[in-house]
């Protein structure tokens, strides 16, 4: 997508962005001990358009609202959200079952630069639940595989049991036109895969640093170490994109909750070129 098209996509939002629409949970899948995916359909039957990397505000009625990235879409138009239960709202979302209704506002935010990355090598680098916001970008790149150079998916998790979307990773790995590498921080004897951190994977990956776009999502510290490894490998700051998380309320740039330096994560992000936020990412207490 060109910069203008990306801006346009960022501007896509329902008529009244503050009014949640009811969505029904048509399927719910446990991913990890604390992580699950909800498959949602709009009660009003209206189509829902989004770009990879965008997020929705999900309401667990009676508990509150959380920003949750769209983690995929079924051909039937069903939206996927993958949630890690970490507190009040996400715990309540976890307790919901098939047939229950949530409120949804969105989509919001700037997407991954899947159009700008065309004709270049693409590095999709995720840590932990960070694979969820990147999955739509992976789907997009693979659906348009001929438009890209080498495609690398590098993923790190805490232990082998914490690897998100193992079936997807296996399917991507089985393709000859994608390089997939997975590592874990720690493992018990018997694990035949890699033990180490994501920056180690970058050192061993084959890509053309001056002609590549990297999309990175994971805990902030993991992203910082990853960006350092990418820069060490010769990539330019403007070719590295990261997805930031800040507490959100309005998601449309009104309330200031998500302020990050001079920017708002909800409307200027969550996806940022590292050049634009490098300074703020290394400042404490932002």
């Amino acid at each position, binding site marked *: 997508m060109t910069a203008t098209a990306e801006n346009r996509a960022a501007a896509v939002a329902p008529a009244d962005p503050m009014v949640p629409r009811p969505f029904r949970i048509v399927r719910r899948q446990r991913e990890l001990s*604390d992580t699950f995916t909800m498959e949602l359909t709009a009660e009003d039957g209206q189509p829902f358009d989004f770009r990879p990397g965008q997020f929705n505000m999900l309401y667990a009625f009676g508990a509150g609202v959380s920003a949750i990235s769209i983690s995929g879409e079924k051909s039937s138009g069903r939206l996927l959200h993958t949630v890690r239960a*970490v*507190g009040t709202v996400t715990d309540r979302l976890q307790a919901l079952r098939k047939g229950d209704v949530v409120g949804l506002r969105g989509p919001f935010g700037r997407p991954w630069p899947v159009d700008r990355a065309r004709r270049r090598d693409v590095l999709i680098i995720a*840590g*932990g639940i960070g694979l969820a916001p990147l999955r739509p970008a992976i789907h997009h790149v693979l659906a348009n595989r001929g438009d890209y150079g080498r495609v690398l998916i590098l993923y*790190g*998790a*805490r232990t082998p049991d*914490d690897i998100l979307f193992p079936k997807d990773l296996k399917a991507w790995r089985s393709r000859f036109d994608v390089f997939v590498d997975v590592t874990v*921080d*720690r*493992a*018990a*004897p018997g*694990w*035949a*895969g*890699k*033990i*180490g*951190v994501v*920056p*180690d994977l970058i*050192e*061993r990956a084959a890509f053309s640093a001056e002609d590549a776009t990297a999309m990175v999502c*994971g*805990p902030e*510290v*993991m992203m910082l*170490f990853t960006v350092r490894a990418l820069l060490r490998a010769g990539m330019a700051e403007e070719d590295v994109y990261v997805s930031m998380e800040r507490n959100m309320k309005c998601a449309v740039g009104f309330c200031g909750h998500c302020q990050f330096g001079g920017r708002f994560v909800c409307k200027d992000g969550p996806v940022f070129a590292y050049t634009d936020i490098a300074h703020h990412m290394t400042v404490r207490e932002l």
Partner: protein
Amino acid sequence: MVEIDGLSKLLKEHPFFADWSDDYRDLLAGCAANHRFDANDYIAREGQPADKFFLVRHGTVVLEYPVPGREPVLLETLHEGGVFGWSWMIAPYRWAFDARATELVRAVSMDATCLRGKCDADHTLGYELFRQFIPIMARRLEATRLRLLDVYGSTR
């Protein structure tokens, strides 16, 4: 001589020595030996004399720490292009962990006594060798710190 030429070529193919001058590489090839390990072979044992370091050419090596009466703790894995075993540089020159092949591993070892002799005779060579090792050690330390931070762990 033929063997040294072959080892010098193997060193050139490995990222650790890829950018070295032919002269130094040929000189160090005199300290090198080619190895093949099968799955589950121990390449080094914790506490044993660290008389060499290894360049991995193929396969996976797991570094693990033996815990009496329990399963070993897996520390990290190394792969093609990896280097392990800097205990040869640091007194008392003993391995700090076990190194085990998890599959067929091809590696080149560099003999420590031979290396020390050559570095003592040519300090520039010693400096180059240390200069090559230090960034690798720094990155390994950085990776260890990142894992200590347990970034994927629960927030509660």
